[in-house]
């Protein structure tokens, strides 16, 4: 796979939230607004990049049996580093991200990429993977946050798009609203992927859902069977 491909796969094909379904806890918890989504996404991107680099560098040194604890230590170190550095030199950024930073330790995306990718690939590829996954994570969180923020209060980036929208759709601010919105996102994602696969002729529906085996309605390609 080319370097570009390592980057772009995180955006769509192997999107950490929508395809791998990793890091759902921060996804559901903090995407009440597009700004929060962006903050969480960028903070995760920093940590993901740092941990992927180090894990890739030490992948041949650390014994296989203790690799997971080592990765956790590395990730926790980076999270604390990011926390301290932003507190010292980027006060504004720290005020905006401060709450999200400790949450990154428990984000499965970071550990998942360290174990599934960085521990098996070279430094350059791991960097590209971390950037792609991080950007994909950020964009997904922003999209989810944007939908929730708009539906709950008619605003985006804390800017009231529709003046005098006083009716608050509170459900969307709560975690159940995040589940519902994410459900629609996943359905949309699957629908687009299935359509694309069908166009390429690669799509094969599961037997129980395949219209070719069912006479109830007239969807599906029956010519294949004939």
């Amino acid at each position, binding site marked *: 796979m080319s370097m570009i491909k390592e980057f772009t796969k995180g955006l769509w094909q192997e999107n950490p939230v929508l395809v791998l379904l990793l890091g759902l806890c921060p996804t559901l*918890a*903090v995407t*009440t*607004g597009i700004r*929060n989504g962006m903050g969480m996404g960028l903070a995760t991107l920093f940590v993901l990049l740092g941990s992927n680099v180090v894990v890739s560098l*030490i992948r041949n*040194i*650390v*014994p296989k*049996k*203790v690799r997971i*604890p*080592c990765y956790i*230590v*590395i990730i*926790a*170190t980076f999270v*604390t*580093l990011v926390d*301290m*550095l932003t*507190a*010292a*030199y980027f*006060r504004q950024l*720290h005020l905006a991200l*401060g*709450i*999200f930073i400790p949450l990154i330790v428990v984000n499965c995306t970071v550990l998942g990429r360290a174990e599934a990718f960085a521990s098996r690939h070279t430094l350059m590829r791991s960097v590209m993977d971390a950037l792609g996954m991080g950007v994909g994570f950020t964009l997904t969180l922003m999209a989810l946050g944007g939908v929730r923020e708009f539906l709950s209060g008619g605003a985006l980036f*804390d*800017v*009231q*798009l529709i*003046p005098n929208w006083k009716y608050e759709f*509170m459900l969307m*601010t*709560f975690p159940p609203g995040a589940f519902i919105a994410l459900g629609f996102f996943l359905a949309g994602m699957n629908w687009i992927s299935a359509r694309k696969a069908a166009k390429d002729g690669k799509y094969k529906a599961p037997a129980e859902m395949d219209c070719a085996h069912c006479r109830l309605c007239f969807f599906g390609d029956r010519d294949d069977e004939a």
Partner: protein
Amino acid sequence: MKDILILTLSLAGVCAIASGVLALANERTKDARAQAAIEAKSTALKKVLPEHTNTPLQDTVVVQNKDLDTTFYRARRDNRIVALAGQGATANGYGGLLKVLVGFDPDGTIRKVLVTEHAETPGLGTQATDRRTEKTLGDILGSPETDKHDDKALPPNSYLDQYEQYNLLNKTTYKVKADDGTIDAVSGATISSRAVADAVTHVAKAFETHRQTIVTAPAGETVTTKEKTTANTTF
């Protein structure tokens, strides 16, 4: 046996390097972080206090009690106290520690309540803690001359603003309505609302008990409350 030794040593090695890096980073950023925290505090004090000529950050009286300490900052003009700010803390926030800064007149009337430190859930608990400027598209697209937002003024927060009708001396216990109090909690953020009320209660109790000392004591004085302040910690 040899295997175990290698595994232990390599994990210990990784941990040692990690703690070394963190210790170094902590040492290097300690001063800068302290500086940033002081700056943040003096900005917050400016926001809750009226115009003054002294440095309230250095003109403090600390009230110690069994719970977290309460610090009072005194704002003076021509050596006369024009207003005070009390920093109260509670550990009962949804994300643990929560600190409020209550600006009030010497007679106890609350001027402004500001949450200076918290770890509440973004979007939910922060509705009870953060003051955010409400912006509309018109504000962004409109010409700068018509911009009515005043950078110095605190943006409103309907939850925090309701404290301004109270007086710290007349009312020392603040409770949300769910706990038979008078404060309207933010729906969906009862715990955060409760924590803010709890922290304000600490300030009020400390000010009521030690009013004389707080107003007259020299800067840097520390007074101790013997009995435990009974705040509304019932859940």
